[in-house]
């Protein structure tokens, strides 16, 4: 049973212009998406740059204003309450940032960084607080003497682990991971990702995993949402998306995964060209005349695709 639902979330930014600086148009950064979160699962949010992935994450956690739509957390509508800093919602939803370096205050020691959420959300005695910080460092596999260090003294992977330790400090239910590894090199990526999987099992976390790296998403996620121009084009389980992509955009995205197999190079090139040609031909079927993605339509229990065929509109 899902503990949190997002219904028809929209984030629109006004474009101002003209003589009186009036609102001319809107950027539809996020345009009507719905999701459900179940405990212990990982949800992938995939798409190209600028498709609204990060905006979705930020609006869920309350860093962006929502234009319309609802966020329901444990049966309660928290759409407006989420911007109150001390709410339970804010405690239970945490975020891992893309750039670990800039997400840690350069003037604070690790112990102060980790104490920040604890002081805000949990009433701990100084002794309990110190024990909890030691515990967090143990979870992310760092020695206790890092407590007195400053963020610039760590490598990228270590910084990201401090970011993760901070995110799990208050025992959250959902962690929004906004491209948590895209700033790290490949060897460290694997390390951080496996480690995120481990603590997920240990603590029963739910992840909303935002990424543009399809390989990483395949490794991490149970359910995947493909996003394009602020809307979902296809959602489904990992098997649905990777073995049975229905939407032309998903196909195009999957065909773009790099593969270092020299033997099949020409075949893959022909395949990619076929997908691209198909994309141009079938454009009308999947996007309306303004290039907008159609509403999602279920094609199996878990698999939904945005296609024109149905007028009733899925979801």
């Amino acid at each position, binding site marked *: 049973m899902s503990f949190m639902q997002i219904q028809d979330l929209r984030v629109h930014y006004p474009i101002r212009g003209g003589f009186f600086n009036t609102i001319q148009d809107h950027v539809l950064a996020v345009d009507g998406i719905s999701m459900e979160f179940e405990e212990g699962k990982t949800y992938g949010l995939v798409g190209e740059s600028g498709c609204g992935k990060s905006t979705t994450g930020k609006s869920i956690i309350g860093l962006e204003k929502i234009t319309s739509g609802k966020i329901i957390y444990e049966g309660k509508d928290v759409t407006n309450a989420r911007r109150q800093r001390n709410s339970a919602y804010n405690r239970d939803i945490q975020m891992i940032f893309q750039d670990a370096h800039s997400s840690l205050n350069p003037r604070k020691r690790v112990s102060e960084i980790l104490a*920040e959420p604890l002081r805000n959300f949990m009433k701990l005695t100084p002794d309990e607080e110190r024990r909890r910080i*030691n515990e967090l460092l143990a979870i992310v596999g760092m020695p206790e003497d890092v407590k*007195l260090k400053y963020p610039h003294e760590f490598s990228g992977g270590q910084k990201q682990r401090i970011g993760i330790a901070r995110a799990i400090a208050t025992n959250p239910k959902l962690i929004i991971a906004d491209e948590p590894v895209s700033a790290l090199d490949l060897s460290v990526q694997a390390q951080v990702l496996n480690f995120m999987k481990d603590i997920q099992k240990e603590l029963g976390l739910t992840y909303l995993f935002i990424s543009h790296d399809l390989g990483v998403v395949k490794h991490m996620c149970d359910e995947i949402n493909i996003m394009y121009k602020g809307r979902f084009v296809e959602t489904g389980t990992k098997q649905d998306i990777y073995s049975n992509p229905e939407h032309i955009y998903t196909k195009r995205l999957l065909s773009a995964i790099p593969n270092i197999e020299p033997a099949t190079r020409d075949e893959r090139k022909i395949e990619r060209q076929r997908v691209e040609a198909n994309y141009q031909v079938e454009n009308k079927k999947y996007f309306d005349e303004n290039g907008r993605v159609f509403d999602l339509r279920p094609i199996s229990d878990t698999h939904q695709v945005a296609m024109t065929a149905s007028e009733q509109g899925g979801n």
Partner: protein
Amino acid sequence: MAEKQTVDVEKKTPAASPPTGIQVIAREFAKDKLAMTSLLFLIVLITVIYVWSFLIDQEQLMRISLRDQMAAPGEKYWLGADKGGRDILGQLIIGARNSITIAISVTLITGIIGIAIGLITGYFGGWIDNIFMRIIDFFITIPSLMIIIVFISIVPKYTVVTFVLIMSVFLWVGTARLVRSKALSESRRDYINASKTMGTSDGVIIFKEMMPNLSSILIVEMTLNFAGNVGLETGLSYLGFGLPPSTPSLGTLVAYANDPFILENAWWNWLPASLLILLLMLAINYVGQAIRRSADARQRLG
């Protein structure tokens, strides 16, 4: 992973912090001998002026004694006397003290107001920013010197305190604008967002998270403001709009040079004050420049 949780390492580890504003500034001064000399000179001068001024009775000092009119420097008056027979040295000390006191108070008041308003407008942006920026634009467009002179003419009984307040009304805007522009970019950084998601309130984020990261430019701004503010009182007194005539002032002493007779025959009336102002301003400016260089990694010497 978690074998030894109880080991307390807090005492053992030497804290290797990133070079903070203060450390960088210290290194810069160590490299720049002129700035170091200026700093020492300033510290000594200011201490001497403040201690000495306590020993001087201002009423006694400003009493006119016609027998000592234009007395040359000598046994009784080390730096001679003016045309009212008043000790120049005493006036110099009290005048310098007033100038420095005014400079420090104006710098502190405008600094606190400017930094607070700059940080708040930069952090929140939107309509708060808009309102304050329009107010600041208004303050910048009005001719402040004229208004200060008018103020001084109409306020019946003005003292150092009223003078400081009048000056402060006009001088906080520059600091506020500078701090706002820095706060704007700083507040879009991820660590501010992270603090927001971790439930820290806006006030704490502004003053405990953001302000320490802007400390270097705040220090620079305050020092350079101080250098400018030392000349404030002197300039207005020279024009005749400074502190009341019963208060000794460097500006009044320099203004004696307007009289060709004194300029030619009684150098001790105007020269010491002019030299003191010159040295004071130069020293503060060298210190300010060293601090400004230390805030910008490309200009640093140390």
